């Protein structure tokens, strides 16, 4: 490391403790790190590792129950030679307020909640100028609009008067960045700036941050858990685990020669595209789990009935569409009805025993589709048939006993393990409820089934009488999986099952799902926006965009030779935790990958969104293209 004087920010032996009724929790233990002027330091760690607390301490915005000790030295280039120790500044006093917003800017993780919904974004951004400069209102507006243009708003004058809820997540994050940068700070703290965003939006925001950081010559402290982001943006890396710094160094040193076992483990726990077929993720803490004991108890209906001639295709979806009608126009304007096609002419099949991955950005219709498959909503057109072992079920029209049968055949694992389990039921009740509702077995055999379910997901029997809040996010998700398995479903739909979990826990859950799938011969539909995760899990992958499946192919084919421009941009936007393969920032378009205007003619729908059909490229590789274009021309 260079001499202290050259560092913009030095954190030395920082200890942060929280006073709670039961005592004191030490959240950060003797952490030291530095940020050099004009450079990017990434602070990497899982949730709860103390990385956000450090960033709060740097700005002096710790919650009131927290106490910081040690030194945080900020050497303002405006006042060379006299570093300020932020820890010693009075809380919310004049000196620290003078630094906040003016010399240090901060971007938060959640663009939805970080902006006030009652004030226009122009008001909120120009407020920073009002606090720190003597500019008059017109000058503030001019500067704000200039900054809004810089962060990528097409029409800054209009954006100035818009409210945050009128903007998409990505645009809100841009507004947030504009707010942090309006005073041209020397240091930008970005706390998980892209975690809540889709992968193509994430690439745009990363590009924007990198461009602005170079343009304005500012330093950045990037807080993230995503090693892919780190590899693409950072100059130096600091790895933190449970409040202690594990490893620090330049990005080259960290990625080429990780020393600490924690970092090594972290790198192995993340799915990436170059995994050998059959290669497994190595979770940091592996859990003993065995689905084998479940076989005789809750084996899926197919193997239970012992029919070898069960049809090969389990689920066939034919031309399914669903349109939602929303009332547009404000409260005081005439309600103009707008129809939104959430799912549009979707057809695919799921074969027995396979895992179909469903990928797409938020709003592409993948959740609506999963709800149709669950019969949580009824499709407007098309048919969904489940070829169950004991007879077909028409999912769109089933009623009475067919519907009850359907409910035991298709189960769902939800995204949020916190809100999807009732906090007022014990684990035993949660797992037993589906058995009771469907009158499976006696009280005694039900309990036995529940015990085996717990073994299968790697929890022991002490869990039976505890409530969900006593478990971590990963454990709760495993309970959610056990609940879905209780009835021995034929089809399990996993809707973003790991996106709310930390990287290390993510690997546990993915491996568990993989094992269960193998042991039980389960058919799964795996929905995710994370391509690497889908790549790890799925046998075939379907890509959804604007309510349609634009491409569907076996995993290797899709990953190796994607045909559709949307799939290509999705793949191009995934940041690799590998220095050899940086993101190609120049290829990232400002409007996002789902902007059909940027697609080549062969894939673009005509004026009224019609004229497209699935073209067969062979080997089960289907791509949505204009029906008058030959399949051979689509492969380029």
């Amino acid at each position, binding site marked *: 490391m260079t001499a202290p004087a050259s560092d913009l920010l030095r954190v030395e032996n920082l200890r942060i403790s929280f006073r709670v009724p039961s005592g004191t929790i030490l959240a950060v233990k003797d952490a030291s790190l530095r940020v050099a002027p004009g450079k990017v330091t990434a602070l990497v760690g899982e949730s709860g590792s103390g990385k956000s607390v450090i960033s709060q301490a740097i700005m002096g*915005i710790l919650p009131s129950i927290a106490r910081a000790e040690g030194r945080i030295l900020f050497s303002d280039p405006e006042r060379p030679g006299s570093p300020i120790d932020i820890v010693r500044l009075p809380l919310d006093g004049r000196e620290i307020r003078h630094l906040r917003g003016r010399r240090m800017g*901060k971007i938060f993780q959640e663009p939805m909640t970080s902006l006030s919904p009652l004030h226009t974004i122009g008001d909120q951004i120009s407020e920073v100028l009002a606090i720190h400069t003597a500019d008059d209102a017109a000058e503030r507006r001019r500067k704000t609009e200039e900054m809004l243009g810089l962060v990528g708003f097409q029409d800054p004058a209009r954006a100035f008067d818009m409210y945050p809820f009128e903007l998409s997540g990505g645009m809100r994050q841009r507004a947030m960045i504009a707010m942090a940068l309006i005073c041209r700070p020397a240091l930008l703290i970005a706390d998980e700036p892209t975690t809540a965003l889709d992968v193509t939006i994430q690439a745009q925001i990363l590009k924007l941050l990198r461009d602005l950081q170079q343009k304005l010559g500012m330093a950045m402290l990037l807080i993230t858990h995503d090693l892919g982001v780190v590899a693409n943006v950072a100059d130096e890396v600091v790895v933190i685990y449970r409040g202690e710094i594990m490893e620090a160094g330049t990005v080259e040193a960290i990625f080429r020669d990780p020393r600490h076992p924690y970092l090594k483990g972290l790198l192995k726990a993340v799915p990436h595209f170059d995994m050998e077929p059959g290669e497994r993720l190595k979770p940091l803490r592996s859990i003993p789990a065995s689905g084998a004991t479940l076989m005789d108890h809750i084996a899926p209906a197919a193997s239970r009935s012992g029919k070898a001639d069960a049809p090969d295709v389990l689920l066939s979806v034919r031309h399914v569409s669903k349109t939602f009608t929303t009332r*547009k126009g404000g409260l005081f304007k005439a309600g103009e009805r707008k129809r939104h096609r959430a799912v549009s002419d979707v057809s695919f099949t799921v074969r027995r025993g396979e895992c179909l991955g469903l990928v797409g950005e938020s709003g592409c219709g993948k959740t609506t589709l999963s709800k149709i498959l669950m019969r949580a909503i009824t499709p407007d057109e098309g048919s969904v048939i489940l070829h169950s072992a004991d007879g077909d079920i028409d999912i769109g029209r089933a009623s009475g006993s067919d519907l009850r049968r359907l409910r035991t055949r298709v189960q769902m694992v939800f995204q949020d393990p916190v809100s999807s389990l009732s906090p007022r039921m014990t684990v035993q009740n949660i797992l037993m409820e589906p058995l009771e509702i469907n009158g499976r077995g006696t009280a005694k055999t039900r309990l036995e089934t529940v015990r085996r379910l717990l073994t299968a997901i790697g929890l022991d029997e002490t869990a039976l009488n505890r409530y969900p809040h006593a478990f971590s996010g990963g454990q709760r998700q495993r309970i959610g999986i056990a609940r879905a398995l209780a009835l021995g479903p034929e089809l399990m739909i996993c809707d973003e099952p790991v996106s709310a979990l930390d990287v290390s826990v993510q690997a546990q859950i993915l491996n568990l799902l993989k094992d269960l799938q193998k042991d039980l011969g389960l058919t799964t539909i795996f929905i995710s926006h994370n391509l690497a995760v889908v790549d790890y899990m799925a046998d075939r992958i379907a890509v959804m965009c604007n309510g349609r499946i634009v491409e569907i192919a076996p995993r290797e084919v899709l990953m190796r030779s994607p045909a559709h421009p949307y799939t290509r941009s999705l793949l191009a936007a995934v940041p690799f935790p590998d220095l050899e393969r940086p993101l190609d920032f120049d290829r990232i378009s400002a409007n996002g990958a789902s902007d059909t205007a940027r697609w080549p003619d062969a894939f673009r729908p005509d004026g009224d969104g019609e004229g497209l059909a699935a073209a067969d490229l062979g080997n089960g590789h289907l791509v949505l293209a204009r029906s008058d274009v030959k399949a051979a021309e689509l492969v380029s």
Partner: protein
Amino acid sequence: MLRYILLRLLSMIPTMAVISMLVFTIIELPPGDYFESYVSELTAMGEDVDMAEIEELRHQYGFDQPPVMRYFHWVGGMLTGDFGYSFEYQLPVSEVVGDRLWLTVLVSFFTIIVTWLIAFPIGIYSATHQYSWGDYGLTFLGLLGIAVPNFMLALILMYFANRWFGVSIGHLMDQKYLAEPMSWEKSRSILSHIWIPVLIVGTAGTAGMIRRLRANLLDELQKQYVVTARAKGLSPMRTLVKYPLRMALNFFVADIGSILPAIISGAEITAIVLSLETTGPMLVKALQSQDMYLAGSFLMFLAFLTVVGMLISDIALALLDPRIRLAGRSTK
């Protein structure tokens, strides 16, 4: 906006029509009418009753007609500004209510202002100094205020005022001004009397308001955008006023709808205890004696104020909160 207000105003018409039917039905529900209770009262006092005269009166006021006819007669009268005749007071309803109505409005108006003036600073203090001694102390006082019934407080105050200062704190003015027209002395007398009922009626409201403001503000103070504002370098006071307090105002505005009817009917029992010249005691009495036009007019007026109050708070909410105003506008 105009279109919305117009639609809301139009939708008030069927609402009021249904309410008027309900009110009429409720007033008709008890057996008999005013004359029957009048006759039984007179006979109870041992006086002779001229039944022919009663029948004549019945006929004169249309009480011998079927209910549907009487309903239309009543509603039609109200639409032309004729609120009917109070048998009890032997005067047109508008004259009976007139003077008391504006006194009631005065008392309630002051009560609301006092409630807000006290509740706002205390609520903000409690929320920003959560679990401090100040918060605990004020919370305790507030809970006392909620727990003690108003009329009880009125009785206690009356007792001590009489005991220590030898004055009666009842009424809204010196009795000699009662029938007099408005004058400088009369208004002075009212102002010197009014603060007692205002304080008494205000206590419970203040305490409730403090609790709600504290709870709402505490919720808002946890929000991420407050941290954002601090990270901009905004001072704590300005942060508080511009962001969380503004958000917490929503429930305040939503409350206006229920304040308006409370202005007229509020605090009847306290008013009776303190013998205030407000409309509350009058409404209670009118209902007891089946003085149907008086009671009916009161109830209709209350309903009207509720509907208008709701409209006002809806419009104010829309002005205050862009999420309501612009909901559904397309996203960029």
